């Protein structure tokens, strides 16, 4: 059988301004048969997206195919132009992009975006195109397809949009689909549906799917074969089950080991680099300064949240006509001293709103928040604000790009008068940087000089500056690669043990929650549906929704388990 995609010795280069070249993809071989899903896995910068772009003829301007060959359905890509005689992107290769919120044009209807490809590539009229569009919407499982043809993207949910994107990819019956992180921007329950859809379409229509992803759970869920990439090279390739259960290359092994397991709680996640003596010394100095002694761990709650309600709404001039959206409905929980308390739920469930309310960024409509026995209102004493610090989700936008790192870290230290003078504050900043595993000299640089994981370390160092007794971490690792995530999770655990910090830890990733938290609350639609000790919650979930979430979370372990039962 003719492979739908055959890549041989592919090399993609970007000429650099200084005359050198950056090799983005180096000597890649890959074959994809009809109906097969082949996952291309790696961390950011591994070159996996570049491979997808190369075969769709979408390489950005200076980038070029330097060597090797790509053939799609037996037809060769001209490596000089990046295009193929007889192969048209859209008609013969379909594309699915990562974020369904931005890959559809907001100003055009679903029908227009579905039909334009067919009108351009197939010699059919508008009426026929519309009929096909309707069939496609049915095939991807969109309810009320007739009505949805006339909808605009903003009227659809994220999952529905991704279904529309898949429908456009299928519109001209391509033999090959390149799906670049197709479910990364989606909630677990939607992710499960979309993955199933892709699997079914591959089976029924005999389409080959090149699945670019960084999520091992997704690979375990649907891929037949997998190729692991690092720095533009293939480190391991083989059947998905074989590679995931018994990786041979050292990098593949660390990468798979860094994935936090959902089935079992580990003391620490295995990461290659451990702490240096400088780090340990810096941490000792952070501990000695900490105002919370690690020993005073008792059951007295640090944070008490009672019947918290938050409403967002538009006020109307007519009384009683205001329409309010209840983001948080009567939420109550305690966080004990030295405890990591998890909040888990899908997007829109209100978990971030709870965090923002506690941090004082959102005003609650009713309910109370007590921190260290004092009610938190809109106006707070400086000492309370100091004790409660926050780490945000996106490390790229959380740091001021025009501030040197040590100035950014020293700023809150000076604000709370924790250092005698600016020089001392800078010294403290350097110690904090070492405590989070960066070098003290890193502070002289600006945020753009650091990777995502390093930036998140800086954000944590900044939050530790005011010597808080509690950290609010809102999805601190969701923007990061697995190996970086593992390092950061270990770091946060160390800091808790070190300084007796309490943490409110927010995540949508159940595996991360299991690794990190002592107790967990599951939120849905603004309410807590289940609150329990982490181990209890994972071993014996009580609420249906919790069970549903656990069942749908893509996991590496499932593939291992099914193999065990098979054996």
């Amino acid at each position, binding site marked *: 059988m003719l492979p739908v995609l055959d890549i041989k010795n592919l090399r993609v280069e970007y000429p650099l301004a200084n005359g050198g070249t950056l090799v983005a993809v180096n000597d890649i071989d890959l074959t994809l048969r009809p109906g097969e899903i082949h996952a291309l896995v790696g961390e950011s910068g591994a070159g996996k997206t570049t491979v997808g772009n190369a075969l769709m003829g979408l390489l950005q301007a200076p980038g070029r195919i330097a060597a090797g060959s790509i053939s799609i359905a037996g037809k060769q890509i001209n490596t000089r132009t990046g295009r193929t005689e007889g192969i048209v992107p859209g008609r013969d290769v379909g594309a699915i992009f990562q974020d369904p919120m931005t890959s559809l*044009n907001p*100003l055009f209807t679903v029908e227009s975006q579905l039909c334009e490809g067919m009108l*351009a590539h197939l010699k059919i009229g508008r009426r026929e195109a519309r009929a096909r569009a309707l069939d496609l919407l049915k095939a991807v499982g969109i309810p009320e397809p007739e009505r949805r043809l006339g909808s605009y993207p903003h009227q659809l949910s994220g999952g529905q949009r991704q279904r529309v994107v898949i429908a456009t990819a299928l519109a001209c019956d391509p033999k090959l689909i390149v799906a670049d992180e197709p479910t990364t921007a989606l909630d677990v329950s939607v992710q499960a549906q979309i993955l199933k859809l892709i699997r079914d379409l591959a089976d029924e229509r005999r389409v080959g799917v090149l699945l670019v992803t960084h999520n091992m759970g997704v690979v375990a869920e649907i891929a037949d074969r997998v190729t692991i990439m690092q720095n533009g090279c293939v480190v391991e390739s083989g059947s998905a089950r074989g590679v995931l259960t018994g990786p041979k290359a050292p990098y593949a092994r660390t990468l798979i080991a860094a994935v936090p397991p959902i089935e079992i709680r580990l003391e620490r996640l295995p990461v290659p680099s451990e702490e240096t003596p400088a780090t340990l010394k810096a941490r000792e100095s952070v501990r000695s300064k900490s105002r919370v002694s690690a020993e005073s761990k008792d059951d007295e709650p640090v944070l008490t949240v009672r019947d918290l309600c938050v409403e967002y709404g538009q006020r109307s001039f007519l009384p009683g006509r205001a329409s309010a959206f209840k983001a948080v409905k009567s939420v109550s929980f305690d966080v004990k001293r030295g405890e990591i308390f998890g909040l888990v739920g899908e997007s829109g469930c209100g978990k971030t709103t709870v965090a923002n309310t506690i941090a004082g960024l959102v005003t609650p409509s009713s309910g109370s928040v007590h921190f260290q026995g004092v009610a938190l209102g809109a106006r707070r004493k400086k000492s309370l604000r100091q004790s409660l610090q926050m780490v945000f989700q996106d490390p790229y936008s959380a740091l001021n790009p025009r501030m040197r790192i040590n100035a950014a870290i020293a700023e809150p230290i000076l604000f709370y008068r924790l250092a005698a003078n600016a020089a001392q504050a800078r010294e403290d900043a350097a110690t904090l940087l070492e405590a989070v595993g960066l070098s003290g000299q890193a502070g002289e640089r600006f945020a753009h000089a650091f990777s995502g994981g390093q930036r998140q370390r800086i954000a944590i160092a900044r939050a530790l500056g005011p010597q808080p007794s509690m950290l609010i971490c809102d999805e601190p690792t969701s923007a990061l690669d697995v190996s970086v995530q593992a390092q950061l999770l270990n770091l946060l655990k160390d800091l808790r043990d070190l300084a007796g910090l309490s943490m409110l830890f927010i995540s949508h990733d159940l595996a991360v929650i299991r690794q990190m938290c002592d107790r967990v609350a599951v939120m849905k639609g603004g309410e807590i549906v289940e609150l329990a000790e982490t181990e209890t919650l994972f071993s014996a979930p009580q609420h249906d929704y919790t069970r549903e979430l656990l069942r749908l979370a893509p996991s590496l372990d499932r593939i291992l388990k099914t193999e065990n039962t098979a054996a």
Partner: protein
Amino acid sequence: MIRIISMRLFQAILVMIAVTAVAFIMFRFVGDPVATMVREGASQAEKDALRATLGLDKPILMQFVEFAGRVLGGDLGTSFRYQQPVAELLMSRLPATLELVLVATVMSLALGIPLGVLCALKPTGIMSRIIQSATLVGISMPTFVTGLLLILIFAVNLRWLPSSGRGELVNLGGWQTGFLTISGLKAMILPSVTLALFQLTLIMRLVRSEMIDVLSSDYIRFAFARGLPRSYIYGRLALRNTLMPVVTVTGLQIGQLIAFAIVTETVFQWPGMGLLFTNAVGYPDIPVLAAYLLFVGFLFVMINMVVDILYTFIDPRLRTK
């Protein structure tokens, strides 16, 4: 949709009340109208009598309400200088300005949008560099210099086009139009080109920067990944997304042009509203100035409303809710 429009309407009324109040205050504080109206050496009793007939002895709020009532009824007072109702005066000058602005706007959009797209598609090409530097000259040269240069070349040296006035006009039910005669059209060319040059540059640069942003967006990359024809991607998918700010700016610019085409109208002796306004400032003709203020306020409020409504046509996201 109805909610948005009614909201805008409500805001517009508030703004108009504020503008009317300013116009009213202008009457009150720029000289005493009684003093300018009575004959010399009038007795205090005569002055008081006039004050009473004009209603100036009433409480100030009452006077304001009456003033607003007169304005609503279309009575903007009588010009001190021309001794003509101001409303009539404005109406006689309005067509000249509106026609000029219309031609200038169409010209700047018709050239500015394609040039902007061209510059966005080939940002480093020779063509776009030439266009960019040429229009930079256009934007940095004051209007009166451009106007005088054009007069010097096309009217004085080449004698192709008239240097001033509107040429022959045709009266269409009270609207004096220059569109229907050759000399009217010829007279329109130089002033409208002068007026359009600045707009053209503005719109071109706006389209260019907006288009560059849109071209790097995911949905355009997705369109390329689907192999759609380039002309379709640029001309339809990308262009519509760039038009939102262009609509805003064009709307505001039309307002600017109508209200402040003063320099161009002066240079070309174009009998429009700008010329009326400059003369009124020199005199000083308070009723004309006040009416002009009201008119400009009304114009901007209306244009903003139209722009908001146009938004909802271009962007479906604004339609729901």
